[in-house]
């Protein structure tokens, strides 16, 4: 069966520090991968999606970047965090057509 792992679960980082959040998927190949951010009490904002290794589409210009070094690995990064980067980050994957999105448990990032 397919599973998605996202870590860490919580993270407190100072302003200006780098960020690396990792997401891996098991049990499927060539998934579509997504990074979302959810501000407190708000909806999910699509940040990046990827259809394959090295293929990244950015939805919102910002202080973050994403990379997909392997088929089932999706990484969200920042060189210098801002206070506004705080939020709940969710990784998800879909496969094929007309299929549901499977979510990781999320990373709660607090930038102080």
């Amino acid at each position, binding site marked *: 069966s397919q599973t998605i792992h996202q870590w860490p679960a919580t993270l407190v980082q100072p302003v200006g520090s780098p960020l690396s959040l990792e997401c891996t998927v098991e049990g499927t190949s060539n998934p579509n991968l997504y990074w979302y951010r959810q501000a407190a009490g708000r909806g999910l904002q699509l940040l990046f999606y990827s259809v394959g290794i090295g293929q990244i589409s950015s939805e919102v210009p910002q202080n973050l970047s994403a990379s997909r070094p392997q088929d089932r690995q999706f990484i969200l990064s920042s060189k210098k965090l801002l206070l506004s980067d705080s939020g709940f980050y969710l990784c998800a994957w879909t496969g094929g057509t007309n299929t549901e*999105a499977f979510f990781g448990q999320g990373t709660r990032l607090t930038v102080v």
Partner: protein
Amino acid sequence: SQQGEEDPQALSIQEGENATMNCSYKTSINNLQWYRQNSGRGLVHLILIRSNEREKHSGRLRVTLDTSKKSSSLLITASRAADTASYFCATVARGRGYQKVTFGTGTKLQVIP
């Protein structure tokens, strides 16, 4: 950008009552899905309705889709306290071998025992 807009933003009902949430979207879709999120957790898929379907049922859930109005509704019948959560609609658009899944702003449902 947010594709879907849910209303109401918040809904408080008594246990046993029905809860209706609405979602509007802007662009063409392949399918529309509803998700549930318990506080501070990941999202869990509830139900999917394809663009050529008008209504779908799953247990106490009923989803309708009106592509001419670009809107969908989620009805939870005979609500329970355990249904308390945030509910999101997600529109799915296909393009060049991928699915782009875009979420709405969500409805926060509180079911009072």
